[in-house]
């Protein structure tokens, strides 16, 4: 079959066991070229791995059979931007950073606020990326108002729309959010925009122990403050709590006073970017368990250079050293857990005895087949 989109690159994807996969990559410039690639895959029984800018695949994907990668970064562009209505619709390869900049220019805020400047809209949705601002604005899936995906060369599906409220039809976009490209190739999506924050402030306080930092962070959750994030940074040299506030200037000032009355003096600081090499684990900081104890166990057993815990959203990032591979770090983290903490997510699939029931797995498989009837996408 003659392909108008050549396979020009080799994608070197790290897998969870630390090995490397090398896959040919095609970067279609148009939807027609994308369809051609999907037709090629269907005719030859090949499995497709959709990819945005590749900031998540290496660390988060388990090994799964794939024959080639469709890179969506060239399928980029804004389709509709309605700042007064609070929505933006763009093609999947559009970077989140460019959308954030567009929104900010009209007094709007795009969520999630992602650390990686190259993250694409489609990739951010497919990987269910968590932003630094999730505590206030919620997960990625709450931002997606509608989505169009290609399921094969001849089949596409749209759900939701370009409105902030809409319950017509099934929310198929919920399957694509965090679906890691297993059920289709996201072509375009509409995100909700929030009002811009007139004032933002990052405050920091150092602590002697992880327990004290987590306890203080949890105290903030019990106040009327609505921070964008409450983040604990922890390594062998330093433990600190960083609080990101935002809103009307008078509101932020009042929140600072309230926090200082609870936590003592707080230092104003700058936003601290997450390390480039990090993996995220969900769930371990539920306030009903002894979070400090076992996250420390994880950090040491996993060999992570340091740990960043987002309080209130039950999420922990383990920053890995160059020699400590993400996949093996994650496995070591999971293996370090004495028991599955209540309210956790990722661990359920890997801890013995806590796997989803056969009925759930069977239904997920049927739904996946319904979404990807030709079985084109790598699962």
């Amino acid at each position, binding site marked *: 079959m003659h392909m108008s989109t050549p396979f020009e690159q080799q994608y070197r994807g790290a897998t969870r066991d630390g090995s490397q996969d090398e896959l040919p990559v095609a970067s279609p410039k148009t939807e027609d070229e994308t369809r051609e690639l999907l037709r090629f895959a269907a005719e030859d029984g090949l499995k497709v791995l959709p990819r945005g800018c590749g900031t998540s695949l290496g660390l988060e994907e388990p090994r799964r059979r794939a024959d080639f990668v469709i890179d969506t970064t060239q399928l980029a562009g804004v389709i509709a931007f309605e700042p007064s209505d609070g929505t933006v619709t763009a093609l999947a390869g559009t970077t989140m950073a460019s959308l954030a900049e567009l929104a900010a220019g009209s007094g709007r805020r795009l969520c999630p606020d992602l650390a990686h400047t190259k993250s694409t809209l489609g990739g951010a949705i497919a990987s269910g990326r968590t932003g630094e601002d999730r505590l206030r604005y*919620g997960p990625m899936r709450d931002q997606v108002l509608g989505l169009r995906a290609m399921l094969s060369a001849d089949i596409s599906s*749209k759900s939701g729309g370009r409105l902030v409220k809409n319950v017509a*039809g099934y929310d198929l976009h919920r399957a694509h959010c965090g*679906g890691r490209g297993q059920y289709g190739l996201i072509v375009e999506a509409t995100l909700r925009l929030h009002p811009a924050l007139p004032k933002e402030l990052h405050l920091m306080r150092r602590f002697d122990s992880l327990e004290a930092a987590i306890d203080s962070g949890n105290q903030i959750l019990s106040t009327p403050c609505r921070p964008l994030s409450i983040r604990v940074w922890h390594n062998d040299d330093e433990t600190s709590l960083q609080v990101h506030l935002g809103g009307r200037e008078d509101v932020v000032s009042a929140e600072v006073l309230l926090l200082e009355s609870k936590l003592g003096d707080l230092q104003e600081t700058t936003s601290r970017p997450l390390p480039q090499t990090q993996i995220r684990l*969900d769930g371990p900081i539920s306030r009903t368990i002894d979070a400090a104890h076992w996250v420390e166990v994880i950090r040491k057993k996993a060999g992570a250079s340091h740990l960043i815990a987002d309080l209130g959203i039950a999420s922990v990032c383990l920053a890995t050293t160059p020699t400590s591979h993400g996949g093996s770090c994650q496995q070591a983290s999971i293996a370090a857990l004495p028991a599955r903490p209540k309210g956790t997510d990722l661990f359920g699939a890997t801890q013995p005895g806590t796997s989803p029931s056969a009925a759930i797995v069977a239904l997920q498989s*049927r739904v996946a087949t*319904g979404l990807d009837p030709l079985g084109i996408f790598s699962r």
Partner: protein
Amino acid sequence: MDKALIDGLIEIIGKDAVVADETRLMSYESDALAMYHEKADLVILPADTAETAACMKLIASFGVPIVPRGAGTGLTGGARPIEGGVVVATSRMRQVFEVNPTDGFARTGAGLVNVDLTHACEDHGLFYAPDPSSQRACTIGGNVANNSGGPHGFKYGSTTQHILGLVIVLPDGEVLDLSEPRVDPEGVDLVGLFVGSEGTFGIATEVTVKLVPTPEVVETLLAVYTGGEGLSKACDTVSEIIRVGLEPSAIEILDTLTIAAVEDSVFAAGYPRDASAVLLMEVEGTPTEVQGTSGDIMKLAKTFGATELRSAQTDAERAMLWAGRKGAFGAMGRIAPDLYVADAVVPRTKLREMVRTTVAIAEKYQLKLATVFHAGDGNLHPNICYDRRDKEETRRVVAAGAEILEACVAAGGSLTGEHGIGLEKLAEIGLLFSEQDLQAMGRVRRAWDPDLRMNPGKALPLRACVELGDKPKSSVEA
């Protein structure tokens, strides 16, 4: 209905939980869209997941359609049968299994009434945010099925943003325990897909919900507009509030006919009778936040032509203002015996234009239109007051309703913001989705319900669910 099935169900859940006599069955002929009604063959009221699963398994062996039902407050005909079948009502599942104030979630039975959930957790300084106008009657399970909204959805979002887990009974009686609250779904987001599936995937029997902290301060505001352009001015005020990025928790508009109905009813809220529209808003947060935002909103409302501005001074006054809004649909019974509640959504920049369009359509069909809506979300509720005994008027209501929906979709809107497609809007769903889109949805429906026995003829046209050559169990064609 097969006597063996009835006997089997009685054996599982007891005689008192099986409704078979003609008089009692009449209560289940329709939901709150009384225009359409159809007798169920049988209604069962299982008490919990185990009873529901056993009943569903038995019903599956007879190949009978199932219609899930909460409190029957839905407005699209979604909770009524089309051609008989068994209605499975969840109204006995009112348990609150757990309130976890530390991690901010609760687990309840699907039949728990919405407002009772907030009552169950208010001592912990928490509440359940989605608040449909029918919250004193509607159930959490019904809210899940329809992805219900409510006035405070402007700030807090719809039901789907508040559901952390579910226990679901599939059509064949299999139980899926997805009740553990999860940060993010693992694999296909079954919970996310289920919310808003309108009873076509299975029956949720237990629900794990997110709870949110009760705000420190709440201020309820009323902006009054008079004169012929009052309703348009109220719409413009809302569009401007959104444009400048102010964030009240609720923004509702009531028009003059609604105000008159409310003020004549037991829900009288003290809205000025000479107003052509009122804008009811709520601001929540810290004292500083509420004071600042309320002040900005009041200034803006005045700039856009509000002739009177009020702030509720007491909890009683606040409750009264909201009782008027939430009782508005009931109060419309004073205008006419029946009510057709449209549920269209439009971009928030087009509120003025679309409200005018709906008024013009009602005038064209010589119908009484009372408008009350979630203006902040662009979610219009043009309510047509009519008498369904008058067949000719009913025909005009249906035609006007369809025309309103078509106009809203043409303006970039949607058919439904919170009530669902149900039975009522099946004919219009093609305005929003292509045949391919509907077929993708149909394949997902079949993944949950291969025999298409769950709430047949609702949410999605049957043709979208049927593969070539298949013969559906139900002969109902939408």
